[in-house]
C-alpha cells in the first residue's frame, strides 16, 4: 500500500492518473485516435498518378488550416469546460468579431492594430460579462451563453447592417490595411498558412500555461470541486470570469482569422461552430463534468475532426452519409474515453 513510485513526471500533471503503462497509453488516447484516423485516411485516400492525395503537403496544410478556427475556439472552450461550464456563444462571438474587423477597417478606415485590439477587447468583455452572469448571479453557463449567442448574433447583424461586409485591401478609403491581409497569407515557402501558425501559438501557449501557472491549478480546482476550491482560498468568482473572458477573447481571435481568410465579415459567420468546438474538446478527453482534461487532447480532437472531414470529402462521400459517419465517429471517440482505467 502507498508505495511511492518514483516515475518520470507525468505528461499531464493534473487530471490524470499515473498507474503504469496502461494509464500512460490511455492518457494519450486522443492522440492514438488521431493516429488511427490518420492511418485510415491514408488507406482510404484516393490516389492520382500513384500519389496518395491525402498526405500531399498542401492537402495536409489545408486540413490544418481548415480546423485552425475551430481549434482556436476549442482551446478556449477547453478552459471553460475544465471549470465545469460550457460556452455556446463562441460561434456568434466569432461572427461578431469578423463583422467588427471588417466594419472597423473597411467602413471606419481604422488601422490594423486599433481594430484588432478593439475586436479582441469586445470578445474579452463579452466573455467576461457572461462569466459575471455565471459566477456572480449564479446562472448556469449553458443558459447564459445560449442567451449570449443570440445577443452576439443580434449585435453582429445590427453592426453590419445585416449584410456581409466585404474586405478589400489597399490604402484608399473603405479599404483595409494590407498588413491585415498578411494574416491570411501562407509562409514557409507558401506552404504553411498563417492561421495555422496562430492556432499553433495559441495551443502551445495554452498547454504551457496550464502546466506552469498557479491559475491552472485554480481552474482545475474550480472544475473538480468548487466548494473545496473556495474553502482553500481560490478566488472562484475571479477564476470563472477570467476563463469566460479568455474563451471570448479566443473566439474573437478566431473571428479575426475568419474574416481575413474569407475577406469578409458576415453576421452569419460561425453558425454551429460551438458544437464542433465542444466535440473537439470531448473527443480530446476533457470531461464535461469539469476538472479533468487537457489542451493537448483538444488539439488532437480538433485535428481528428479535420482529418475525418477531409478524407470524407476527398472520397466525395455523400453529404448525408457524412453526417451519419461523423455522428458515429464522435460517439466512438467518446466511447473510447470510457475505457480509461479511472473513470
Amino acid at each position: 500500500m502507498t508505495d511511492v513510485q518514483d516515475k518520470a513526471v507525468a505528461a499531464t500533471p493534473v487530471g490524470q492518473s499515473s498507474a503504469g503503462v496502461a494509464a500512460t497509453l490511455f492518457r494519450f488516447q486522443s492522440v492514438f485516435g488521431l493516429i488511427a484516423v490518420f492511418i485510415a485516411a491514408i488507406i482510404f485516400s484516393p490516389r492520382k498518378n500513384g500519389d496518395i492525395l491525402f498526405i500531399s503537403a498542401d492537402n495536409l496544410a489545408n486540413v490544418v488550416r481548415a480546423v485552425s478556427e475551430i481549434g482556436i475556439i476549442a482551446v478556449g472552450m477547453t478552459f471553460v469546460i475544465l471549470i465545469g461550464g460550457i460556452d455556446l456563444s463562441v460561434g456568434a462571438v466569432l461572427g461578431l468579431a469578423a463583422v467588427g474587423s471588417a466594419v472597423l477597417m473597411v467602413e471606419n478606415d481604422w488601422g490594423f492594430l486599433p481594430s484588432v485590439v478593439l475586436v479582441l477587447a469586445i470578445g474579452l468583455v463579452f466573455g467576461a460579462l457572461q462569466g459575471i452572469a455565471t459566477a456572480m448571479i449564479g446562472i448556469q453557463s449553458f443558459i447564459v451563453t445560449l442567451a449570449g449567442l443570440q445577443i452576439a448574433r443580434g449585435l453582429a447583424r445590427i453592426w453590419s447592417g445585416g449584410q456581409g461586409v466585404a474586405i478589400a485591401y489597399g490604402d484608399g478609403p473603405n479599404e483595409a490595411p494590407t498588413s491585415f491581409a498578411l494574416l491570411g497569407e501562407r509562409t514557409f515557402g507558401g506552404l504553411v498558412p498563417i492561421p495555422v501558425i496562430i492556432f499553433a501559438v495559441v495551443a502551445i501557449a495554452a498547454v504551457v500555461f496550464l502546466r506552469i501557472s498557479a491559475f491552472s491549478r485554480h481552474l482545475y480546482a474550480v472544475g473538480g470541486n468548487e466548494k473545496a476550491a473556495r474553502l482553500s482560498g481560490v478566488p472562484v468568482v475571479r477564476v470563472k470570469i477570467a476563463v469566460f473572458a479568455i474563451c471570448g477573447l479566443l473566439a474573437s481571435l478566431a473571428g479575426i482569422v475568419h474574416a481575413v481568410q474569407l475577406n469578409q465579415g458576415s453576421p452569419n459567420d460561425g453558425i454551429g461552430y460551438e458544437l464542433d468546438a465542444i466535440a473537439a474538446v470531448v473527443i480530446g478527453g476533457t470531461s464535461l463534468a469539469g476538472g479533468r482534461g487537457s489542451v493537448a487532447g483538444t488539439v488532437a480532437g480538433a485535428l481528428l475532426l479535420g482529418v475525418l472531414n477531409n478524407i470524407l470529402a476527398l472520397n466525395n462521400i455523400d453529404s448525408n452519409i457524412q453526417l451519419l459517419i461523423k455522428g458515429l465517429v464522435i460517439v466512438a471517440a467518446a466511447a473510447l474515453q470510457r475505457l480509461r482505467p479511472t473513470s
Partner: protein
Amino acid sequence: GCGTTSDKTSGAAPGASKSCKGADGKYTIGMSQANVAEPYRQRMDDDIKTAAKDVPQFDVKFADAAQDNAKQVADVENYITQQIDLLIISPNEAKPLTAVVKKAYDKGIPVIVLDRKVEGDAYTGFIGGDNVQIGREAGKYIAEKLLPQGGNVVELKGLAGATPQAERHEGFVEGIKGNPKVKVIASASGDWLREKGQAQMDALLKANPKIDVVFSHNDPMAEGAYLAAKAVGREKQMKFTGIDALPIPSGGIKAVEQGRLAATFTYPTNGKEAVAAAKKILVDCGTIEKTQTLPTRIIDASNAAKIYAEENPNG
C-alpha cells in the same frame, strides 16, 4: 419578359483548352453547393445529376457547405487536391469564395459559377437569375394583374442580411411603383422558412384587418402564410405570391396548380444549363458565354400544370 443577356468570354481562359480531351475523355466534375438544406439548391443538385446522366463522359461529385463559407472554401480546396476537371460552384457568398475560385481557375480548372456570383473575372462562366428582375416582375404582376384598383400588400421577407432578400425587395419596390394605390402596409422576416412565415403571418393577420396580397420572397413562406390565413378563415380574402417555382411536389408550381398561390416566379436552378456548358467546354472544346442570365417566368393558374409536366419529363 426579358431575353437572355450575354457577353462572350474574351480570349481563351487560362487552361480552359488544356482540360478538353474531346469525346473520348473521362471527366470528373466537382459541384460545390452552398447549402442543400434549401430546397432550391437541392433541386439544383438534382438537376445537375439528371442532366449529367445524359453525358456518359461525366462523373459528377457533390459537396455541401451547409451554409458555411469556410466549409465551402475547404470543399473547393479538396476538389483542387482531387484534380477535378471542372468545377461547378454555387457560392454561399461572393466575396469569401472569390479567392479559392480564382485559385482553382488559375490551376487550369474551368469554373462555372451558378446563381450567386464571385467577384472579379477569374471564372469561366456565370449562369444565374436576376433577383432584382424577379422582384420587379413580381411587383409588376401584383400592381397590374392582382391589384389594378390598388390594395394592401404585406411583404414576407427572406433572412435579414441575405443578398437575394435585399435584391428581391429592391426589385419589388420598383415593380409596384407604377400603381401608387398599391400600399405595402407591413413587412416581416420569415427567414425563408415555412413555419416562420406562418408564425409571422399569424401576427400580421392580427394587426391588419385588411390584406389583399401577400408577397413572399419565396414559396415556402408563402405557403406558411396561406396556412396562417386558412386557420383564421381569411385565405379567400387575399392572394399569395411566391418566388422560386420549384418543379417538385412540395414546390411552388404545384401550389399554384392547386390554387393556394396566385402566382410564383421561377428562379431557375440552371442545373441543366451548367451541365450543357460543361459539355461545351470539356467535350466540345468550345467556349461559353461569360455571363448567362436566365429570365424568370411567371407561373400562374394558366400555365402551372403545363410547366410542371415540362420540367418533370419522367413523371
